[in-house]
Structure formats: C-alpha cells, structure tokens
C-alpha cells in the first residue's frame, strides 16, 4: 500500500479583530491507500480546519498557512494556485459535510449536482453523466434511482441526502475522501447505515478516508487509525486498537471516560472539566495542562516531544518521560467490549 498523503508540520492561523488565532499548530500525519484515519477531538481542536485545508477550502484570507506542507501524490497542495486546486477538488480529493440538510443545493436536482463534477472532470456528455448518476445512486443504496435522480433535495429524507452527498463525492473516483462529521446530524439508526456504506464503498473503490468526528463510537466502527487532536495539535496517534486498549495520553483517557456505556451502573456522564485553551494566545507548554489531573511543572512551559510507544503509536506527553512518575489510566478509561473495525 503506497502512501498518498503526507502532512508535515502544518500550521494554519486566522486573522481576526481580536488577534491571530492559531487554529492548527504543527500537525503531522500520513495516509495510505485503503486506510481510514479518524481525527478526533472536541469542538475547537482544529480538526475541521485541518480537514478543510487539505482541500484548500478554508477561506484565505482571513486564514493562512503559516508553515508546513501537504504532499498529495507527490505534489505540495499548499503551493497550488486556485485554478490548479479546482482540478484536484472533486477529482482526486472530495468531501462529505456534516449537515446533509444544508449541504445540497435546494434549487438543483440531485442528478444535476452529481453530473456537474463528472462533466467538468471527466468530460462526460450530459447523457453519460446522467447515466453514471443513476449508477452512483444505486451504489449508495437509493431505491428507484431512475426517478430519484430527477428529484430535488427536499424530496429526500435526511439519510438519503447524506447518501446522495456521498454519491456526489464519489462521482469521479477520488483517491481521498474527507468526511467531516458525516453522521453527526443523522439519527443513530441512519448513522450505522452511512458508516457501513462508507466502509463498503472503500472496499470496492479502495479510496482512502479521513474521518473527522468527536464520536468515539464512530471511530471504533469505521477507522483503522486514529489521531487525537487537542488545542491545534495531535497529542496522540496510533492504530484504533492501541488508542482504545492502551491509550497513553491523559486527554485520550478523558475522551474514553466520557464515552457513555450501556454496562456501567454510573448514573452520571463523565466529563473532562474545564474548557479548551484560547488559541489566540496558545499555551507555551502542553495545551492540556490546565485540565490535566496529572499535570506537572514541566508541562506548563515545555511542549512534550512525541514518544514512540510502539511502531505505530506516538504520544506527546511528559508522563512518558523516564523521569515522570508512573501513572495508571483511570478505571473509567478502560474500555471493554468495544469492537473495533480493524
């Protein structure tokens, strides 16, 4: 499996009236064919900005790349002109958004919205694009595609709209599919269907997927690798099993603890106290220091380097330093019975 995406030291900042917000600070990850990388983290951790900047969809200005590179197929996307990006968007990389109720154009038939990309990127005739549209709708499991293709989005249900959105994203067989919280706005029953669909399609087409989510259930269900983001940085990354069964970062522990489980007798939901740091004035040390129950003096002023826990797992935490005391993850962060997909 070859590497198709390599993000190195990526930093993105936004100019605002209140000052420069450093939304993403030195993010690094890579992605291979057929792989699904989940980027998890709470609101404001920079995960959506990271994902959208891979397609250069973050509005610039006010946004700007302050450092780093995005190597996709051997080309640096940071240096591409807008015109060059138009060629890549939709053909090589495409995206699924969070809210299917608003992400389809209400005044255009679903068929036309699918056909647009095909006509632009593959020089298809209108007729051919229409036929391919019917196939795509069938692929994503929409019944009666021949009739449905001529309907408007408001005639679709929420789950069907997200399926249509996936059909649009898949139209040109992209090498990379970015799904920005694709199931957040859907009913739980529909969520599972959409995740199954994405997995099935990945098996058929071999596309790599980046899945942005804050739902660890979705991660367990769909991802093969996980990157945990906090305060604009990736604090821990590893295979899905490693993140669930041997997490090393206190923030990951917090995330796992706050995942409700059916077995536990606890009435109350666990939460991580406090709120994420203000990225207008990012902390010098570890961004999690103010909320970390195990914080030490060193955490305040020095950002920890990544420690290789295994060949695939990397964690940025001072607790892994040999001079640090041994800390066991809390009982609530132990997950049992979570079936991961990998």
């Amino acid at each position, binding site marked *: 499996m070859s590497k198709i995406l390599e993000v190195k030291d990526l930093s993105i900042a936004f100019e605002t009236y209140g000052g420069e917000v450093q939304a993403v600070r030195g993010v690094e990850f890579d992605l291979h064919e057929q792989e699904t990388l989940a980027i998890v983290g709470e609101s404001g951790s920079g995960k959506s900005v990271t994902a959208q900047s891979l*397609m250069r*969809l973050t509005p610039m200005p006010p946004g700007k790349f302050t450092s780093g590179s995005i190597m996709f197929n051997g080309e640096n996307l940071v240096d591409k002109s*807008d*015109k060059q*990006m*138009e*060629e*890549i*968007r*939709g*053909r090589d990389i*495409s*995206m699924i*958004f969070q*809210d299917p109720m*608003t*992400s*389809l*154009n*209400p*005044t*255009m038939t679903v068929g036309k*919205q699918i056909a*647009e*990309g095909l006509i*632009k*990127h593959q020089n298809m005739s209108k007729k051919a694009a229409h036929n391919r549209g019917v196939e795509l709708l069938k692929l994503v499991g929409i019944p009666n595609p021949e009739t449905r293709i001529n309907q*408007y989005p*408001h005639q679709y249900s929420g789950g069907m709209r997200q399926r249509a*959105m996936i059909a*649009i*994203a898949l*139209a040109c067989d992209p090498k990379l599919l970015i799904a920005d919280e694709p199931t957040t706005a859907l009913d739980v029953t529909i969520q599972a269907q959409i995740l199954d669909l994405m997995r099935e399609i990945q098996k058929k087409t071999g596309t790599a997927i980046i899945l942005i989510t804050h739902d660890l259930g979705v991660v367990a269900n769909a991802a093969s690798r996980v990157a945990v983001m906090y305060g604009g940085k990736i604090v821990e990354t590893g295979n899905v099993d490693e993140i669930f069964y041997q997490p090393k970062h206190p923030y990951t522990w917090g995330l796992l603890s706050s995942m409700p489980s059916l077995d536990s007798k606890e009435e109350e939901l666990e939460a991580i106290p406090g709120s994420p740091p203000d990225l207008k004035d990012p902390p010098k040390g570890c961004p999690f220091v103010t909320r970390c129950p195990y914080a030490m003096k060193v955490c305040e002023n020095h950002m920890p380097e990544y420690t290789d826990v295994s060949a695939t797992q990397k964690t940025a935490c001072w607790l892994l330093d040999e001079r640090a005391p041994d800390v066991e993850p809390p009982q609530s962060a132990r997950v049992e019975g979570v079936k991961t997909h990998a």
Partner: protein
Amino acid sequence: MARYLLKRLVYIVVSLFLIVTITFFLMQAAPGGPFASEKKLTPAIEAQMNEAYGLDEPLHVQYMNYVVNAFSFDFGPSFKYVGQDVTDIIARSFPYSLILGLEAIFIALSIGVLLGVVAAVKHNKFGDYTAMVIAVLGISVPSFIMATILQYIFAIKLGALPVGRFDTFWHSILPAVALATTPLAFIARLMRSSMLEVLNSDYIKTAKSKGMSQKVVTYKHGLRNAILPVVSYLGPLVVSILTGSFIIESIFGIPGLGSEFVQSVTNRDYTVIMGTTVFFSVLLLISILIVDLLYGLVDPRIKVTGKGGKS
C-alpha cells in the same frame, strides 16, 4: 395547478370587491363633489346635473349601481371632461405608463441584481463600496430630484436626450431611469445581503469541493437561490412604480395614467376615480399572482397547489 389558479382568481374578485367598496365610501366621505367649483352653479342647474348623473339617488342605490358598473367594467362618462368615457381615458393614457413602467422595472431589476452580486462577490472591497454608495444615493435621493438632475445634465447641458414629452423611445429613457432609481437601489441592497448569505452556505462549499470555479459557484449555484427575496419584492415593486409614476409623469409632461389618476381625485371625478382604481387594482392583483407563480418556478420547494395555497 388549475385549482390553485381558480382559487387565486376567487381571491382576486373578493379583494376587488373590498377595494371597490372602500373607494366608494371614501369618495362619499370626502367633502365637495364633481360640480363644486369657484363659480357657484345655480341650485336648479346643480340639481339637474346631479339627476343626470344619478347623484340624487339614495346612497345605497348609488352604491349598488356603482358596484354593478365596476364589475361590468362600464364606468360611464367622465364628469369633468364632457364627451369622454372613462374607458377611453384609460385606453389613451395607459400605454404611456405601461411602456414607462416596463422600462423602469427592466432597468431596476437588471442593474440592481448586477450591483448586488458584484457587491457580494467583492465583499468589503472596492466593488462592494462603489455599489453600496450608488445604492444609498438611490434610496436617499427622491425620484423627483433625480428626475430634475437627469433633465439638467442629459437634456439641458448635454442635449443628448429630450427634456420632456413622450414621442419616441428616446423620450422614455430619462423618465424610466428616474423612476427606476429607488427600486434599483433597494434591489441592489436586497441582492447583496441575500447573496452574501448564500455564498456562506454549506451547499456553496459543496459546489467548491466538487472543483467548480468561482464563476460557476456564484452564478449557477448562488444566483438562483439568492434571487428569491428579489422575486418576492417584485409585487411591491410594481406598486411603487405604478404609483410613483405620477410624479415622474408630471415632471416630464407625459400624459400617462398616473397623472389621470391623481387629477381625477382632485377633481372629484367619481367615474374616473372608480375606473382608474379598479384598473390599477386588477393590474396589481394580477402582477402579484404572476410573482407567486414565478416564485414556484425559481424555488422547487414551493409547490403551487390547490391545497392550502402555497406550502
């Protein structure tokens, strides 16, 4: 669709009836009558005149006659201009107002939408500021001042266009522009704000993520959604252009329907008031119906059906 149209037609008839009734009683409530003038008529002659025009009958009989006449579109002769039927007056003067109105609507719509889109696309840049300065000027300068400024510059100083009257197409340009300024400015502002909102919406991001160029995104995906508020403004626009045309018509010396309408009111010319009111109302109600049908065409979410009107 047929059911919907039928239903709307019934509404139109009901509204017309209400308009006709209110106009009648307002006319009666206003002091004076068609034959009141500086030179007092002898009581005998006045009584004769009143009898000839049926003004001596009791109020409810007059009202009945009036309603029947209104719905048969037979308004009878003018009280003021001897030998002229109301229908003649309308037939003579309406074409001027129609041409003027259509030209003004065309100018207001095309330039207003264009300015609004430019302002939204160049948000907070030079193009935006220019368009909005034009819009604010257009809204704050009343049409009669605009008219005289236009006359001064283009007719008197430059001599490029005729200063008044209405003979050729060239005569219609200045009054149409003057009539169009305020709605143009309003449409530009409406279009700007709705386009800004649309350009920030999720489906625009989707279109971009498909690799569509800025042009396709703006015009193919944005415009049709953003133009909806403008379409719904078309109804009131027709009203403002029709009623606004009186001032413009008198400034440019155009014998249009707007000036007839206002003159008939000052003259207490009952039949002409009635005729022009009914005519304007029909025009208005039909243009609103057309706007509603148009709305259904632009936005597929609005279905035109008989059940429960618009849904």
